[in-house]
């Protein structure tokens, strides 16, 4: 028990988790039709990348990775604010959030 707790979690586990989260995000991004879900998938991908940043920062005892994570979080927050505002505007205009129906750019 004690020895189990004292053991470090291996690097590969973090990376596997990060990759799995990222893949989930990609799949959600591609498969989901609701704009909000698509948006959440993007956030998921961002956070998956954040996780690998933190992992490597810890591994290499370098602080740059951590700093980068803060940047990503900050941009993600801003993006969430703008993105949600756009989504609300789209919903008001079209009364739908299905990505397949938002296709005015098509020729």
């Amino acid at each position, binding site marked *: 028990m004690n020895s189990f707790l004292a053991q470090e979690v291996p690097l590969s586990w973090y990376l596997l988790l990060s990759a799995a989260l990222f893949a989930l995000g*990609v799949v959600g*991004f*591609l498969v989901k*039709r609701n704009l909000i879900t*698509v948006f959440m998938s993007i956030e998921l991908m961002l956070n998956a990348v954040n996780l690998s940043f933190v992992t490597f920062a810890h591994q290499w005892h370098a602080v740059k990775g951590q700093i980068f994570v803060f940047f990503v979080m900050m941009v993600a927050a801003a993006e969430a604010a703008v993105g949600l505002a756009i989504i609300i505007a789209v919903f008001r205009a079209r009364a739908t959030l299905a*990505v*397949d129906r*938002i*296709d*005015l*750019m*098509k*020729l």
Partner: protein
Amino acid sequence: MNASLHLWLIPLLPFAGFLLNGILGRGLPKWLVTAVALLAPLAAFGVVLNAAAGFFGFGPAVGSLPYIETCPIPWIDAGVLHVNFSFVLDQLSLVMLLVVTGVGFLIHVYSVGYMGDEEGYARYFSFLNLFLFFMTVLVLAGNALVMFVGWEGVGLASYLLIGFYFNKKSAADAGKKAFIVNRIGDFGFLIGMFLLLANFGTLTFSEIAAKLGMDPGWHGGVVTVIALCLMLGAAGKSAQLPLYIWLPDAMEGPTPVSALIHAATMVTAGVYMIARTHVLFDHSPFALGVVAVVGAATALFAATIALVQTDIKRVLAYSTISQLGYMFLACGVAAYSAAIFHLVTHAFFKALLFLAAGAVIHAIGGEQDLRKMGGLWKKLPLTFAVTTVGVLAIGGFFPFAGFFSKDAILYAAFLRGPGGKALWFVGLLTALLTSFYMFRLWYLAFLGKPRGETEHPHATPWSMLGPLVVLALLSIGGGWIGMERFGSFLAPAVGARAAEGGSAHLELILSIVAVAVALAGWFVADMLYRQKPARAEQLAAAYPGGYRVLANKYYVDEIYGAVVVKPLLGISRYFLEWVVDVGLVGGCAWLLAGVANLSGAILQRWQSGNLRSYAAWLAAGAAVLLLFLLVPWDAVLASFPAIHFGIAGH
């Protein structure tokens, strides 16, 4: 060190006149336009006189000829090509300048009266001044390229002035014809210049002469080709066979223009150019022979056409072509100073004849048809008198100017071996015809009974009569300079050849023969047009074929139309327009547009507007990139033996 003569003022003064009248002329009062237009050539003439006075020992001594003035800034300095804007004043250009600016000034004065009521008065004088600018550049040029600038420029001025009445289609067409036919000649001049540059490495006349002088047998063939190219240029400008066709049509311009440009000065540029480059011709007997034969043929050919023309200006135009033929004939027998002598006297009497014809046309309200004139001597006595002088001068009667110069040419031809005898005979025949058609003109226009409505001719203003009188005096006295004196004066510039077998005795006999022939021409004209006026028409009716050929100028325009113009038009219309323009150029444009359209149609399917498809492409692209990174390229490349071998083979 020579005192500065300010040669550059000679062309630039008329150029200033051109700019002033050309830009501001429409807004200036008429007297100011006239003052500017007359002062510019007068001042240029003054500069020339000043230079001449220096050389003849009056005024400040200026040293010896040739006097060279070069612009301190190099004009072209590229590789082997070094050209400066340099002017040369030697005996040849001095004589030419005196004629160009002197006769030019007289014709400017005449134009004040002649063009007084015309629209575009300022435009006319600005063009006339522009012509003088380019003509003096041509004459003063120290190298072929500067001469070419003047050469093209006088062509431009000629075009502008032929087409002065641009509302008239025939005038606009004549201007274009003159310009295009001259292009053919200019092509020859250009090729000649390229060859000069390639073989001599210089375009400066004096350097070419020096290089030729060092080695008398200088690359015979090349010199012949160069001389023939230059001859083509001269034939275009000076209206020789086969390029003479533009000059008769050039009579569409105002009459003073015909006098200045198409009789006295510009058309003699070809003769001047041959005299200027005479060293080349001296090294090529073949080219000289071509010049002589072309000149003699042109003289006779044009004279026969002039026999039956009924337009007073056209008679004079063909006569000009014929007299230019004389000058070429003289050049061809290497009697350059005789050619220039005839050029000078011809400038006097032909300008006189044209201006007199202009006075007649002006007086009777624009009528140019000889058949509708007649009996004008009573109404225009002074014009009649000066025309008589002109006719006697061109006919070669002693002691008028034409006698001396024509005689000098015939004498030089006669002494030029057996071929020269034939040339002499052609020249003599031409003299007979010349005398005949000039007296025909004289009888038809001034004597006999009036045949048109010429009861109340307009008065001729003094601005027109003055130049006529001066030119008449020059036509009487101009020849008395004498060939001997003139030849020895020009000798340093054009060389002098001792005529073999010549003697004063022979010269006297030839002169008597020439005058007798001229008298015979007068006699025939007198018989046909005074004693029995009906006989001329009977004669024409008796030989309808011959008459028609002459009246239609040997159908040369028609032949050129069929041989050159029609095929060119056909090629332009069918081949160039439909095959090249529509097919090739248009086809390429269509092809490019089609490719763009098609690829657009295909690629636009990508832009589905569907967000998820974009996302899918993005993901796919990222996946491909990842895979690309994962491939161990070194190992893969190493497994290709050919590449490996290629490196190992090193």
